């Protein structure tokens, strides 16, 4: 059992090493190795999922010792872990397969597939880790692999900037996470999740808001929540399958997964704050997405918004719902990203949706599956998004009305911008040469789309999940089922996507190269376009505060330490040395004066004046 888990964990690691060390020049072989690794991961994880009959798998071994601190390398395969493992391995495989087609002509395929393998390794590590420090280790590693993959097209300044930004912003989150871990260790004496859960049950007084908020910083960074959300849209500079895998389906969701793993550490206030932040993010991202032109950025903001839903669900005390939404979101968001990848690939890396149009006829499979994704995310009844999102809305409606309001507004926007995307890109007439010449892609790219479309449709039916996988969100879902106002919610939910659809249809059915919103509601458009000036604020901070401060420090260092302290003491020495040198004028009688003064001094000393 445990060997299975360990080989699952280290398979991608070995694969990454093999690719990066030996297959740097052999693109085809590297991609095959990577894909087979992903397949192996899926097989192994399925074996693991269906063989583990115990409720959770626990295993560990000493990894690091220092005094009283003993860190153990351990595996904890419990309910949420099973689910995430399944998502990661399944979506991962599909994206690997998709990448085969998408990256076909890229000369740097080995690097790409090596990076994917590293990512798989670190993501599985996060999933299986049994203690916070181990999670932190893999946490940083996913950050690194994300950095690596965003920087895939490193020759462009955009990718180079974006990768750096992603890493550094994540580091800011990790800074809090790190402090949280340290506090946790000294509060509870352990960082092992199982032991922490026991301790938190036993003495709830140990739990403090500060501590759990510090831990939540990790989530904020990785899941790109307010105020550290700025990196995710920029991260779209990477290859599209990467965006699908990392920045939509799995890695950003890992933040939510982290929260779920440590949910017993959270206090009411902290949960409230997270819920509020999440809901606000859901709305804010929706506004941002509404005015984007870049297909991937729209999807990125949509991801932010959906992560906001998950956070809100978690904050409202329904981690199961959060995880459920995570699952369905993984399917349909991966689907849409891959769909956009398919479009981008077909349109020669054109990403502006206003340069598409009419793709439905040329790329029927992509368009169809994409539509399914759009419908799912908009919460169209009986698709997966409907179940997960409306469950969250219902829960919020029953427990916290302000948050519900925010989330509902977000839901309206979601439907609007999603349909906007669909209409502009796939309907109407082709608006550029690229889109005119677009053709449906090969099987390796369409097959994952179809599979994911199935899952996007069916992912909402809990009954379909094997017990081993779906057991974590089952209780929360059944609790939701018992809540009142079901019918009202159906009406509200349905009206939300219908309103969105209608508005989008009205606005965007016929468009040119210009965004119609910019003419109709220019003020609103400007505000949305500005994204509330976050990027400007950050770049103001970096360029106008941080850089001058660094230069100021450099000058201060030169002035005070190199100058005043080092050169200063050298200068004083030099001055005294000049003084001493000035004594040597070569005249005998002046030297004799020294003798005279010395003699006088000696005699005066002997008279005892100085005693």
């Amino acid at each position, binding site marked *: 059992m445990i060997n299975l888990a360990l080989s699952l964990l280290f398979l991608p690691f070995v694969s990454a090493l093999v690719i990066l060390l030996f297959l740097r020049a052999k693109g085809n072989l590297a991609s095959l190795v990577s894909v087979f690794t992903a397949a192996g991961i899926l097989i192994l994880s399925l074996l693991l999922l269906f063989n583990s009959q115990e409720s959770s798998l626990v295993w560990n071994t000493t990894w690091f010792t220092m005094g009283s601190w003993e860190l153990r390398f351990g595996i904890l395969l419990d309910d949420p872990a099973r689910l995430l493992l399944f998502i990661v391995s399944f979506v991962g495989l599909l994206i690997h397969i998709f990448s085969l087609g998408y990256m076909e002509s890229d000369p740097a395929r080995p690097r790409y597939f090596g990076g994917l393998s590293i990512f798989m390794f670190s993501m599985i590590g996060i999933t299986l880790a049994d203690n916070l420090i181990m999670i932190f280790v893999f946490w940083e590693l996913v950050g690194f692999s994300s950095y690596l993959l965003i920087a895939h097209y490193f020759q462009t300044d955009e990718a180079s900037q974006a990768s750096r930004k992603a890493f550094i912003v994540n580091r800011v989150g990790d800074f809090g996470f790190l402090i949280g871990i340290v506090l946790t260790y000294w509060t509870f004496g352990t960082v092992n999740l199982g032991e922490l859960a026991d301790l938190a049950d036993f003495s709830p007084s140990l739990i403090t808001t500060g501590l759990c908020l510090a831990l939540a910083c990790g989530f904020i960074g990785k899941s790109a929540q307010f105020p550290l959300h700025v990196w995710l849209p920029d991260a779209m500079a990477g290859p599209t399958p990467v965006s699908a895998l990392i920045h939509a389906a799995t890695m950003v969701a890992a933040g939510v997964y982290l929260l779920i793993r440590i949910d017993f550490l959270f206090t009411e206030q902290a949960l409230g704050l997270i819920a509020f932040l999440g809901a606000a993010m859901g709305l804010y991202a929706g506004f941002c997405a509404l005015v984007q032109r870049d297909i991937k950025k729209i999807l990125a903001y949509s991801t932010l918004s959906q992560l906001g839903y998950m956070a809100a669900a978690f904050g409202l005390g329904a981690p199961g719902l959060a995880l459920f939404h995570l699952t369905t979101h993984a399917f349909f968001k991966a689907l849409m990203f891959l769909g956009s990848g398919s479009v981008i690939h077909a349109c020669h890396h054109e990403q502006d949706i206003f340069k598409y149009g009419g793709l439905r006829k040329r790329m029927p499979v992509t368009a169809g599956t994409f539509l399914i994704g759009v419908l799912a995310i908009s919460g169209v009844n009986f698709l997966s998004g409907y179940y997960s999102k409306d469950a969250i809305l219902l829960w919020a409606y029953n427990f916290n009305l302000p948050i519900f309001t925010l989330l509902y507004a977000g839901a309206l926007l979601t439907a609007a911008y999603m349909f906007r995307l669909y209409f502009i890109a796939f309907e109407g007439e082709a608006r550029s040469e690229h889109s005119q010449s677009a053709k449906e892609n090969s099987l390796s790219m369409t097959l994952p789309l179809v599979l994911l479309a199935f899952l996007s449709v069916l992912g909402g039916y809990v009954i379909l999940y094997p017990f081993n996988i779906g057991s974590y969100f089952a209780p929360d879902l059944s609790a939701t089922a018992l809540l009142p106002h079901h019918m009202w919610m159906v009406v509200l939910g349905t009206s939300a996507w219908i309103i969105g659809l209608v508005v989008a249809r009205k606005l965007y059915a016929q468009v040119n190269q210009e965004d119609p919103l910019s003419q109709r509601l220019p003020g609103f458009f400007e505000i949305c376009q500005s994204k509330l000036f976050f990027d400007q604020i950050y770049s103001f901070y970096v360029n106008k505060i941080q850089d001058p401060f660094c230069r100021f420090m450099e000058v201060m260092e030169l002035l005070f330490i190199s100058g005043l302290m080092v050169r200063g003491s050298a200068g004083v020495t030099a001055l005294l040395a000049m003084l001493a*040198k*000035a004594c*040597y*004028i*070569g*005249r*005998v*009688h002046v030297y*004799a*004066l020294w003798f*005279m003064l010395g003699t006088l001094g000696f005699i005066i000393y002997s008279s005892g004046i100085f005693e």
Partner: protein
Amino acid sequence: MLTVTPLHFLILAFVLFGIGFLGLLIRRNILLMLMSLELMLNGINVALVTFSRVGNNLDGGIFVFFIMTVAASEVAVGLALLVALYKKRKSVFTDDMALLKN
């Protein structure tokens, strides 16, 4: 006036010593500096003889003998140096003897 005591001799000795030192300080002529040195040694000799006489001890007197020997040789060497230097610098003044300086 008081009766002369050994104290007078000693004070005289120190005065001679001091005058010698003064000569060394203010004179630029090496010849005179050498003479001043001799004067200092003379002062010491006076003191030594006084102490020797008062202490009723001959060692001091004998020391004077050695001091004279040494003084004479020093003067000899010093004058030889002076002559040699004079040949080079055509001067016996310390002002012209300041090649060695910074």
